[in-house]
């Protein structure tokens, strides 16, 4: 349909839209939008710093995060009296370099956040599409389950499941991936329901487009905006919850450097060596702040209607 319209452009609007497609103009457009929003730019930069440190951890970290050096143990950060620049953020109780452990720790956080959201978003989107598109009894069943899970005290159940299933990265990802499905189902279903009433879907149906075509070429492209926004917030929430589980000793095994595990160690030495707990926490706050600023900006840019929806 779109091809026909571009051959005989009847309005200026269609021609404009034609020029906007293509990858490069889109990038330029997004860059222009970013320039206007300083908080969004800051959020993106903060998030990129975390991503870069996770990807290039072996090149950025000054030490092996697992290497113990008992002679250098419990050293305070460099700017304090007893610290030195060998270990900029100091060392933990076993003499492991805190900066290196924080850099490597970003890998666990981002892996859990990214794959957790990937699972939750894809399954949630699928269920939401079915629920909103098919309706009737199927919809009632899916939404019943969704409302049940959303009514549970989330943290209590996540802790319960994690305690039963044991400590491994895969298990943590699966727990967050599956328990976070309901939010994506809700958003997708809501969007699909409001889209079903809209004129462009009605016209697609009236010219005889099959459900598959309607879903793939009309519904899905319009879902991307809201889902990316929610995914950003959910990813930052998962990074929090993962650190929380680690803090309770229920996330990845203690040998893996992760922010939660570091906090758990730091808590034991809180009153004597407070820096061990301080820096991994700052890393979590930094990441969360970046992703929330980024999410707020995405919400405004991708979908102006979402501005008023508060989680």
């Amino acid at each position, binding site marked *: 349909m779109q091809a026909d319209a571009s051959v005989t452009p009847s309005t200026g609007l269609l021609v404009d839209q034609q020029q906007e497609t293509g990858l490069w103009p889109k990038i330029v457009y997004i860059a222009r939008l970013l320039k206007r929003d300083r908080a969004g730019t800051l959020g993106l930069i903060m998030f990129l710093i975390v991503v870069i440190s996770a990807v290039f951890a072996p090149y950025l970290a000054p030490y092996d995060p697992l290497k113990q050096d008992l002679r250098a143990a419990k050293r305070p950060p460099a700017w304090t009296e007893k610290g030195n620049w060998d270990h900029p953020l100091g060392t933990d109780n076993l003499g492991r370099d805190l900066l290196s452990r924080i850099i490597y720790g970003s890998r666990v956080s981002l892996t859990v956040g990214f794959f957790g959201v990937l699972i939750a978003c894809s399954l949630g989107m699928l269920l939401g599409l079915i629920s909103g598109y098919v309706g009737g009894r199927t919809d009632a069943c899916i939404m019943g389950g969704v409302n049940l899970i959303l*009514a549970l005290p989330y943290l209590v159940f996540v802790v319960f499941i994690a305690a039963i299933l044991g400590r491994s990265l895969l298990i943590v990802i699966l727990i967050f991936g599956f328990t976070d499905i309901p939010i994506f189902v809700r958003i997708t279903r809501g969007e699909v329901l409001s889209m079903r009433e809209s004129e462009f879907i009605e016209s697609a149906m009236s010219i005889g487009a099959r459900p598959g075509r309607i879903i793939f070429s009309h519904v899905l492209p319009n879902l991307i905006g809201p889902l990316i926004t929610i995914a950003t917030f959910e990813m930052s929430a998962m990074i929090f919850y993962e*650190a929380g589980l680690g*803090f*309770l000793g229920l996330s990845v095994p203690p040998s893996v450097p992760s922010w939660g595990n570091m906090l758990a160690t730091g808590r034991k030495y809180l009153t004597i060596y407070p820096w061990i707990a*301080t820096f991994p926490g700052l890393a979590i706050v930094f990441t969360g702040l970046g992703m929330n600023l980024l999410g707020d900006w995405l919400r405004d840019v991708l979908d102006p209607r979402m501005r008023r929806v508060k989680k």
Partner: protein
Amino acid sequence: MQRYIFSRLIQSILMLLGVLLIVFFMLQLTGDPVSLMVSRNASPEQIERLREEMGFNRPMIVQFGDFLTSAVVGDFGDSIRHRQPAMKLILERLPATIELATASLLISLLIGVPLGILGGSNPGRFWDTLSRGAGLVGQTIPNFWLALILIIIFSVKLGWFPSFGRNTWTFMGLTLPTRSVILPAFALGLFTMGQIVRFTRSAVLEIKSEDFVRTAYSKGLPDHIIYIRHILRNAAIPLISIIGVQFGYLLSGSIYIETIFSWPGLGNLLAESIGNRDFALVQAIAFFASVVVVTLNLVTDICYGLADPRIRYGD
């Protein structure tokens, strides 16, 4: 209204049945409960006898039915570790948790509502920036880390508050909190405060541009009357719902804070029983927390319906 309450009540009961189903099957995932109860060198015959005694050899569906009938009267079996009924342990720990959650809610309301009103009524100015900042900070600082930092600053460095434990004093037969509640309550309440600030701010902003507010201004009413009588009254309605939800979160989300401050409440009991792999107790706590949350949601919805006629008659 009665129909509305009735349908919400039925919905809540169905939900709690769903919760029972979930916690029952989650406990099955933990494996054979008998293996946790016997010593390592027990003979297979002994284990088999215990299984029979406890009824673990019956079909799953019968076990679930049994579990359901005793759960309805509040019987969740005994804690493997404490050798006491799980419900009794929970009820013993409940007052401390309620004290903490109430203190958190009070702190977050006392800071959050005024900040939200100031922010919403001066968009783009200093107070607005401050309230938006508070909303963001509440969302991005994890409470378990904040608790550690508060201990470092206010207990270790300044020595103003105790770093752990719960002290109470009795006055005219009432058990009252002491300053030991302040640090944990603040750490726990920061997230809620952020939510309340955000919510109040956007509600005030929205209501300020309504027609009835413009009418009130054009009648020449003074500012404070308009705020109290028209804006805040309307902003209070959605605030009810967020308070209900947040109180549920505070009651069930205190696992970190109670562990860090050795606060003798439910969250601490949960962390402790997970450490002991005392899953019968974990199961009971999970169900109890769900009952609290579902009940609070129900009460909130009813209050909401009473306060706002559009809810009762809509859908």
